[in-house]
């Protein structure tokens, strides 16, 4: 069988121009984007769709925080003060915040947006393995989101994002909208599975000649581990929400004790997916971290294989720790076993953190927006990860469960980890994706606001959680007032930070300076492509001559050797053979 190139397949002409170049008038261009099977365009479409979901989820979060600015107080005369939303509306707000952020934003954000754009570029491929399936996954995502948003339009769901039974299935007439929400989640699951399958096959089958498994950038390892979890965990969520929907509509009784079913079975099913899903959210962020730390400190990643294997280790362990969400509803022995297994996750996570810190040691650290986000990740993710250990310890968990402590913990991991890394990643690859530089001062200002706002929002929640403030309440006793107010003010600073970033991105698209092909001096293959890449990514199929982090040995592609002086060869190397001769 002969090897062929793009030219032999009748695709003449358009393959060597920027993928962003319009194909014609506005209608033609829109049609071109809506029917594209180019992974780069689909990645950008995912980026905008998930950012829209982030905005919607963020608005719900701000409303939740606004309600909590003052406690609701009813005086002797019956006057109510400090209330913006009545409690049932509040329940809907936090449910929708959670469901939108988890299912519509974080899960697809990094893998489907950045992953889609970067994975083929990083392994030197022209596209993902199944480009049409890739486009289908975007449409399925949009369709599932619309179904879920219908639930919001129909005055919402108030079950919390976990949809626990029997509340979600048995309350008469009150919240039948759950059906739309769970159907939406079921459909979104297909989108996630399609993306995961696509990425696993792409990594196996489409690596450029010469690229072995240990020549892949660590972002690819992380996306690969994520994709495996997406493929193996999402179907269980699929069947869970399908059964939940049938339970709600036909009362099939699986999760209803009155009919002989078992509500704890629902919890097991739900968390068998939703705990691995936590790693679907954080692993891609960890992958971004490895790229940011390596490139912006110009250092070979310390312990490449350990970081790569720890991604796979996290993926494996993620499947055996779901029981720690059920410490108060399962047996004691089972809880003890799950508690022990939970501690295991800390090992690969710590391996990564230590290796990133070791990589920074004696590196030439550039203080720019991506690196600042990487440094922030080390700080916030460590807090998020270590407080996870508290919650994995049985005795401590009984005190802390269902308090603001756990709210703070998972926001430090999800937002302090996944979102912070996502923001760093967007800045890092923005020049590659859109061919324009962003304004560094605006980026740093936005970063500063996000970092301060984030910590001000969530750190007080640890304190009030440890003092017993329960989660999901629309009001609180006066003792918690300073904590809640600090938290709400923090949410406004966060908003300001995001608006600065939004403004900087719009400014960059409209009036940004053209980006060079390799603005940061990166060595992975995406920096060999143009900014923005041509339609088929590379003019010639790349061949691998160096590793993605060989900063000591290679002048980065498209860069001036004068800017990247290589270190002197170590003397002992040249002396050694001579010594040997004696």
């Amino acid at each position, binding site marked *: *069988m*002969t*090897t*062929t190139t*793009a030219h032999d*397949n009748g*695709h003449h002409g358009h393959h060597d121009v920027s993928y962003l170049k319009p194909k014609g008038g506005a209608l033609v261009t829109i049609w071109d984007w809506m029917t594209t099977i180019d992974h780069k365009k689909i990645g950008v479409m995912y980026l905008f769709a998930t950012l829209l979901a982030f905005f919607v989820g963020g608005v719900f979060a701000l409303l939740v925080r606004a309600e909590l600015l003052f406690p609701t107080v009813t005086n002797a005369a019956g006057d109510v003060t400090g209330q913006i939303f009545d409690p049932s509306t509040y329940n809907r707000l936090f449910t929708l915040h959670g469901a939108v952020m988890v299912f519509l934003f974080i899960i697809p954000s990094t893998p489907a947006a950045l992953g889609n754009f970067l994975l*083929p570029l990083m392994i030197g*491929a*022209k*596209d*993902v*393995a*199944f*480009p049409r*399936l890739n486009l289908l996954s975007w449409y399925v995502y949009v369709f599932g989101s619309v179904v879920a948003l219908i639930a919001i339009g129909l005055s919402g769901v108030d079950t919390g994002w976990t949809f626990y039974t029997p509340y979600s299935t048995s309350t008469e007439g009150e919240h039948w909208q759950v059906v739309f929400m769970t159907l939406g989640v079921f459909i979104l699951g297909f989108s996630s*599975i399609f993306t*995961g*399958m*696509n990425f*696993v*096959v792409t990594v*196996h*089958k*489409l690596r450029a000649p010469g690229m072995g498994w240990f020549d892949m950038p660590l972002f690819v390892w992380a996306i690969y581990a994520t994709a495996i979890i997406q*493929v*193996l965990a*999402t*179907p*269980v969520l*699929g*069947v*869970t929400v*399908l*059964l939940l929907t*049938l339970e709600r509509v*036909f*009362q*099939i*009784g*699986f999760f209803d004790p009155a*009919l*002989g*079913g*078992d509500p704890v*079975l629902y919890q097991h*099913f739900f968390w068998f997916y939703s705990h691995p899903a936590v790693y679907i959210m954080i692993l891609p962020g960890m992958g971004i971290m490895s790229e940011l730390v390596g490139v912006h400190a110009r250092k070979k990643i310390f312990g490449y294989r350990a970081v790569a294997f720890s991604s796979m280790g996290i993926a494996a362990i993620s499947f055996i720790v779901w029981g720690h969400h059920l410490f108060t509803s399962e047996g004691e022995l089972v809880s003890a076993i799950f508690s022990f297994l939970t501690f295991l996750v800390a090992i690969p996570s710590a391996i990564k953190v230590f290796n990133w810190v070791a990589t920074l040691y004696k590196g030439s650290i550039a203080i720019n927006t991506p690196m600042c986000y990487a440094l922030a990740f080390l700080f916030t993710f460590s807090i998020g990860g270590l407080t996870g250990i508290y919650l994995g310890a049985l005795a401590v968990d009984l005190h802390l469960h269902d308090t603001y402590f756990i709210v703070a913990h998972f926001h430090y991991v999800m937002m302090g980890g996944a979102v912070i890394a996502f923001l760093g990643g967007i800045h890092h690859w923005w020049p590659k994706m859109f061919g324009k530089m962003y304004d560094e001062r605006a980026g740093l200002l936005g970063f500063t606001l996000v970092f301060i706002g984030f910590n001000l929002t969530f750190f007080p929640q640890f304190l009030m959680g440890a003092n017993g403030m329960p989660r999901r309440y629309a009001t609180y006793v006066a003792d918690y007032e300073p904590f809640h107010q600090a938290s709400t003010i923090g949410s406004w600073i966060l908003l300001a930070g995001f608006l600065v970033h939004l403004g900087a991105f719009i400014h960059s698209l409209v009036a940004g300076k053209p980006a060079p092909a390799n603005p940061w001096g990166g060595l992975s293959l995406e920096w060999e492509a143009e900014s923005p890449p041509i339609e*088929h990514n590379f003019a010639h199929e790349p061949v691998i001559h160096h590793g993605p982090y060989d900063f000591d040995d290679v002048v980065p592609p498209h860069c001036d050797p004068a800017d990247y002086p290589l270190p002197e060869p170590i003397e002992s190397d040249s002396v050694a053979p001579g010594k040997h001769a004696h």
Partner: protein
Amino acid sequence: MTTIPAHDNENAGAANWERYRHQPHWRNNQDEYDAAKFGMWLFLSTELLLFSGMFVAYTIFRIMHTETWGNASHHYLDWRIGAINTVVLLISSWTMVMAIRSAQVNHQRALRFHLVVTILCGLFFLGAKVGFEYLPKLAKGEVPGSAFDYIGSHGYVPSDYDPLFLGLYWVATAIHGSHVLIGVGLLTWCLLRAGKKHFGPKHFTALENVGLFWHLVDLIWIFLFPLLYLVG
């Protein structure tokens, strides 16, 4: 270049499978074929996990309500219908294999014949399921949950947990049945493509992947049948 066996006269002239070219992002047809098959196996693993939820639920409920499970299984389900359907699906798996084999040796008529038999087996399975099980059950009120209004017969008195057993039966077999229906649709698509000679010794990717899907659907039934109909 290997010689292509020509078993029948229809193969005169260039067939479509001979002209097949891989999509531009692949290096050659073989890589594309391997990737498609790998992707299909990944998808099958997700299908298996989807059904695993129902198998876990079955196990848990069987432990919780052992007596109901034994009685209800014998009372509501006729093993003979299940057994006939099992045999029919096993035959269809055989004809599916033969269809792919026929494509590989370029036996176009045999390919179409075996696809037609496979489709007919699938339709028979669905027909038997609906005609002899679903419709009579609906008429007698043997349905899950609050709609259950079966009062019993021949001395059989439904227990409190019979609706749960029927819930599991209906959900598991309906989800499986929808897979059979999808499978029949995919096989029909393959038959149409086979009519245009899309499949031959050098290109049979879609046919083989639909075959893998069909075997999985059979395999899940092989587990559902004894668990629901036989184990009493």
